[in-house]
C-alpha cells in the first residue's frame, strides 16, 4: 500500500547525504532506547558486588547461571510468568472485544446519554488509581474474588483508553457509507460490526492489544492487594517482593526483570505484524 512512498521517485527526492543523516539520527534513537535494556541484560550476568563497583565496565561477567539459580531459589519464577501470561492474555482478549464494541457504539450511533457516557469515561481516566485502591479492594472482597485472577483483569477490560482509541479508529477508518450499505443489505447491527467494521479496525485492535497486554503485565498495585497465595502471584509482584531494600539479590532481580520483558517484546512483534497486515488487507476504498 505504501509502495508509493517507497518508489523511486520518492526516494530520489531525498539526497544521499540527507538519507545518511536521517539514518544516523534514527539509529541514534534506537541506541538510546535500547541501551538501558542491553545494560540491564549485562547486569544480569554480574554479581551484586561487581555490579556496584566503579571498576565495572561494559562487559559480560560469569554470574549468569549463579543468578539464574538464585532467581529460581527465591521465587517460583516460571509460575509467576505463567500467571502473568494468563492474566494478560485473557484480559487482553476480553477487552479487545469490549472496547471495540463500546468504541464502535459511541462512534457510529447517536443515542440519548452518549455524551454523558463519553464524559464519564474520560473523567474516570482522571481518577488517581492509588486512592481508589481501598474501595476497589472492598468491592473485590464483597464479590468474594480475593486471591483470584479474575479480580485482577476484569475491572480493566473496559479500559477507557481502549474505548477512546477504538472510537477514534472507527471515526477515522470505517466509512459510514459502507455501514449504511450493509444496513440496506439487511445485515444486523452486530453483524455489521463484526464482519464489516472489525476487520477495518485491525490496526487499532493491534495497538490496543499491545497497550492492554503491557498494562496488565506490568500492573502491580491491584495484584499486590488481591493476590495472596504464592501460586497465584504474578511476575511483577514476585520480582518486587524480593527487593527489600538492604538485601536485594540484584543480579537475580536484573535477570528476572530482563527475562520478564521478553514476552512483551514478542507480543509487540506479533501485534505489529497485524498492524501491517491490517493495512494490506484493509478494504478502504
Amino acid at each position, binding site marked *: 500500500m505504501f509502495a508509493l512512498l517507497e518508489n523511486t521517485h520518492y526516494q530520489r527526492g531525498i539526497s544521499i547525504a540527507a538519507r545518511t543523516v536521517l539514518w544516523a539520527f534514527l539509529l541514534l534513537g534506537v541506541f538510546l532506547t535500547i541501551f538501558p535494556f542491553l545494560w540491564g541484560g549485562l547486569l544480569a550476568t554480574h554479581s551484586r558486588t561487581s555490579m556496584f563497583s566503579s571498576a565495572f565496565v561494559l562487559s559480560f561477567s560469569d554470574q549468569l547461571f549463579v543468578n539464574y539459580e538464585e532467581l529460581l531459589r527465591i521465587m517460583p519464577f516460571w509460575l509467576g510468568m505463567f500467571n502473568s501470561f494468563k492474566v494478560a492474555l485473557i484480559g487482553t482478549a476480553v477487552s479487545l472485544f469490549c472496547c471495540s464494541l463500546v468504541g464502535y457504539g459511541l462512534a457510529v450511533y447517536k443515542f440519548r446519554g452518549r455524551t454523558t457516557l463519553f464524559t464519564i469515561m474520560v473523567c474516570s481516566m482522571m481518577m488517581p488509581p492509588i486512592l481508589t485502591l481501598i474501595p476497589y479492594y472492598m468491592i473485590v472482597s464483597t464479590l468474594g474474588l480475593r486471591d483470584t485472577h479474575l479480580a485482577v483483569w476484569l475491572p480493566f477490560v473496559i479500559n477507557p483508553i481502549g474505548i477512546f482509541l477504538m472510537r477514534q479508529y472507527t471515526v477515522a477508518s470505517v466509512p459510514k457509507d459502507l455501514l449504511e450499505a450493509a444496513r440496506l443489505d439487511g445485515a444486523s447491527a452486530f453483524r455489521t460490526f463484526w464482519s464489516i467494521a472489525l476487520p477495518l479496525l485491525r490496526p487499532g485492535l493491534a495497538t490496543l492489544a499491545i497497550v492492554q497486554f503491557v498494562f496488565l503485565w506490568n500492573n502491580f498495585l491491584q495484584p499486590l492487594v488481591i493476590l495472596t497465595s504464592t501460586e497465584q502471584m504474578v511476575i511483577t509482584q514476585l520480582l518486587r517482593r524480593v*527487593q527489600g531494600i538492604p538485601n536485594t539479590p540484584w543480579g537475580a532481580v536484573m535477570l528476572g526483570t530482563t527475562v520478564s520483558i521478553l514476552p512483551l517484546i514478542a507480543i509487540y512483534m506479533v501485534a505489529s505484524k497485524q498492524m501491517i497486515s491490517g493495512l494490506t488487507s484493509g478494504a478502504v476504498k
Partner: protein
Amino acid sequence: MYKMTPLAAAVAAVAAVAMSGAVISQEIRFDGFPDYDSQINAIADDFKDVSGITVQQLINQHGGHHDRIATTLATGSGLGDVVLIDVGFVGAFVDGGGFIDLTDRFEPYRGNYPEYAIAQGQGSNGHQYAVPVDLGPGVLYFRRDFMEDLGYDIDEVTADWESYIDYGITLRDEHDTLLIGDAGDIANAYINFNVESGNGLYFDADGEPLVTNERFVRAFELARTVRQEGLDGNITAWSEDWTTGFQEGTFATQMSGAWLLGHLQNWMAPDTAGNWGVSHLPTGIYGTWGGSFLAIPAQSAKPDEAWALIEYMISEDVQLEGFQNIAAFPAHTATYDHAMFEEEIDFLRGQQARQMWAEIAENVEPVKPHRGDQIAESLIGTALENVLDDGMEIERALQNAENQIRRRVR
C-alpha cells in the same frame, strides 16, 4: 463496626480453640518482608513439631507490605494472623485499633526486652499492641586505617560533635576523604537521640510541636556546617554511590544499625575487611536504626495460634537463630550473655562489637510515640533538604515545618 471486632474475634478464637481439639493441624499466615522469609523457612518445621501449627507466609517488599497492611486494615479483611511491622510504621499502626491488645499475654516476658522497644510498640493508651522481634542498635562505623594515617584516636574523635567535625576537616585537607556520606544523617542522629526527658521526638507531652527548639536548630546547624565545609558527598544511603563509597573509602564514617555489618562483609565491601571499627555515636549518645515488631490483627480468626508463633519467635533460642540466619539483632536481652556475643569480629579487626551493641540496646532511652510523628518526620526531612541543598535559613525552614505540622496533625 470495628468496636465489634474484638468481640467477634474473641468468639472466633473460642471456636478455633474448640476446633483445634478435633483438627490436628492448624494453619496460620505470617505477613512480612524480606529477609524474614528465610527466618520463617528455617523455623517453621520446628515450630510445627512444638505446636502442631503450620505457618504459611505472604512476603512482599518493604513498601508494598506496609501499603497492603493499611488497605487490609481499612477494609477489615485479608490480613494474615501474624504481621511483621517495621519501626517506621509501628507508631502509626498500633494506635488505630486494628491489632489485638497483647498487654496481658506479653506481661510475663516484658522484663526480657529493652524498655525503649516496648514503648515503641505501645499505643497512646499505654497498651501493648506490637512486641519487638529485632532491634537496630546504632553505632558509628569508622575506617581504622584512615584514623591511623592521620594519628587520631576514636575516643578523641567522638568526644563531642566539634571534635568529630574537626576530624572531618583534617580528613578533607590531608587525606582527601569525606567525613560522612550524607550530612543529613548527622542532623537525624542528633534529633533522634538527644530527646529532652518528658518530651516526645517531635511533640511535647501536651502534643505541641517542638521542631523549632534548640535540639532541632543545633542539629540543622551541625549538618549545615558539615555540608558547607565540604565534608560530605550528599550520597544517599543504599544508592550505588553509597555502595561504591564503602568499597573505595570515599567517606571515613557512617552512622547505622548493627545490621549494616552483615551487608558490608557479605557483599557491599568485602575487600575492606579489617579496616573498619565501630564506636558509640559522638558524645556517647545511644541510638537505634531500624527494628521490627510483631502484631496480631484484630481480624485474625486464630489469635491464640498467632500468639503461639509470636511467643516462639521472641523466645531466647529462636532469637539467637534469627541473629545467625538473617542477622536480625535479638530483642531478647538474655541472648546477650550467649557466647556468640563475645566473638571477635574479623571484619572489624577483632573488635567485640556485639557487646557494644548489646550495651546500646539496653540503654536507649524510651521515647513516647505520637500519632503525628510520621508527618513531622517527613516535613522535617523536607526542611533539612531546603537548608542543606537550597540554602534556606534554618529558622525559616523550621518555622515552615512547624506551621505545616500544626495544620496536618489533626
